[in-house]
């Protein structure tokens, strides 16, 4: 092949190995080599940081498109203000109910995400046996599940994040890798945090501590904060002259 192959021919070669002359050209042409390296880097970055969250979004969007069993029903125009009024009345009741049922001891609440309605929230995306889905309150987790995290609705100023787990009084920093490092910057809106964790085979609950701060504080600071935090929802806290949003995620492992 004398002429450089198109993007389609390149993709066809890498995905289906059609036309070996494309492969030979890519191996010998410096322009194509550079372009291929760039594309592979884009794909690798996507695979490591975005793909799991995006598959979850696709699955979620697809489920929304499923026809409603009430298809064909139509709301009468006068029902709209009535329903709106009912929702406004119901909202504080729902809020009170959810607040009063919260347990301030980590380990008692199994929740797929941290945060009350309208407040900062961290979605947990799970990859299990090749399938990817968002965790909700009715899901359990299993050993070898791969977990990624998507922060949502955080105030503009809160750009840093860390996640650690408590095991018999010992903190293991998961984001970032070592206790000496500072917290990671948050990714763009609705994107997953880089990297993921794989749950081990040991039985019992998985307890993950999360915190968001305005400044890049050390993971050691996060570990101290986790010792005094007992809530299973994300809350604004003032600790050691720093403002933060912090809480526990407790996952029931089967």
């Amino acid at each position, binding site marked *: 092949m004398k*002429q*450089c*192959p*198109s*993007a*389609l*021919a390149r*993709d*066809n070669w*890498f*995905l*289906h190995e*059609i036309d070996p002359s494309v492969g030979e050209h890519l191996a010998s042409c410096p*322009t*194509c080599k*550079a*372009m291929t390296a760039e*594309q592979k880097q*884009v*794909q*690798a970055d*996507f*695979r490591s940081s*975005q*793909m799991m969250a*995006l*598959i979850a*979004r*696709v*699955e979620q*969007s*697809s489920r929304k*498109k499923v026809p409603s069993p009430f298809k064909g029903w139509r709301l009468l125009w006068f029902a709209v203000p009535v329903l709106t009024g009912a929702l406004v009345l119901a909202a504080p009741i729902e809020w009170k109910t959810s607040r009063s049922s919260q347990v301030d001891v980590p380990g008692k609440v199994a929740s797929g995400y941290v945060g009350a309605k309208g407040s900062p929230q961290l979605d947990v995306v799970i990859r299990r046996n*090749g*399938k*990817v889905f968002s965790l909700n309150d009715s899901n359990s987790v299993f050993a070898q599940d791969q977990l990624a995290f998507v922060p949502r609705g955080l105030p503009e100023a809160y750009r840093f994040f860390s996640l650690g787990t408590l095991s018999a009084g010992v903190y293991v920093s998961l984001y970032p890798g070592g206790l000496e490092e500072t917290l990671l910057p948050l990714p*763009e*809106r609705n*994107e997953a945090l880089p990297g993921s964790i794989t749950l081990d085979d040991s039985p019992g609950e998985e307890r993950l501590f999360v915190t968001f701060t305005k400044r890049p504080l050390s993971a050691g600071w996060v570990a101290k904060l986790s010792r005094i935090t007992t809530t299973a929802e994300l809350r604004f806290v003032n600790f050691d002259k720093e403002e933060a949003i912090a809480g526990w995620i407790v996952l029931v492992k089967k």
Partner: protein
Amino acid sequence: MDEDSLTAAYERYMPAVYARCQRILRDRSSALDATQEVFVRVVRHRSELRAGPEFLHWLYRVATNVCLNIIRGRRQDAHASLQFSLPSKSGADPTSARDVLDLLRGLDERTQSVAIYVHVDGMTHKEAADVLQVTDRTVRNCLARFVSRCRDDLANQASENNMIKVKP
């Protein structure tokens, strides 16, 4: 495409689709939205789809339409400015950027798609025809329309510049 094939399709094709959307849209966030939309359509049509080269053609077609929709949406925003690279004959020239809003404005959807296949993806006329499931002649006609449109734009731009120059 059953559940397992769908999972395999995510793994195999999604990064390639994302990279292509990013190449067209030149914006990570829009490329993610476009990729999501493409795969929502995959899920919706999965009973008719099988992995393979034909599926890749289908993905290219859908991704192009989705990206063009995003571009049209941006066009409605007066402040939108979207640029993409037109590759040279050698296949890679990231330096020569054109404003896609101006270049594709007023053209029919098929011509817009052909312009992207040939000038962004570097496809041959035959490849573009295969992906679009039209004849080579249709592709040539679309490209002729696209080139004619570019010439008109250039002529208009030149005359506008002259008018500005003669003004005191």
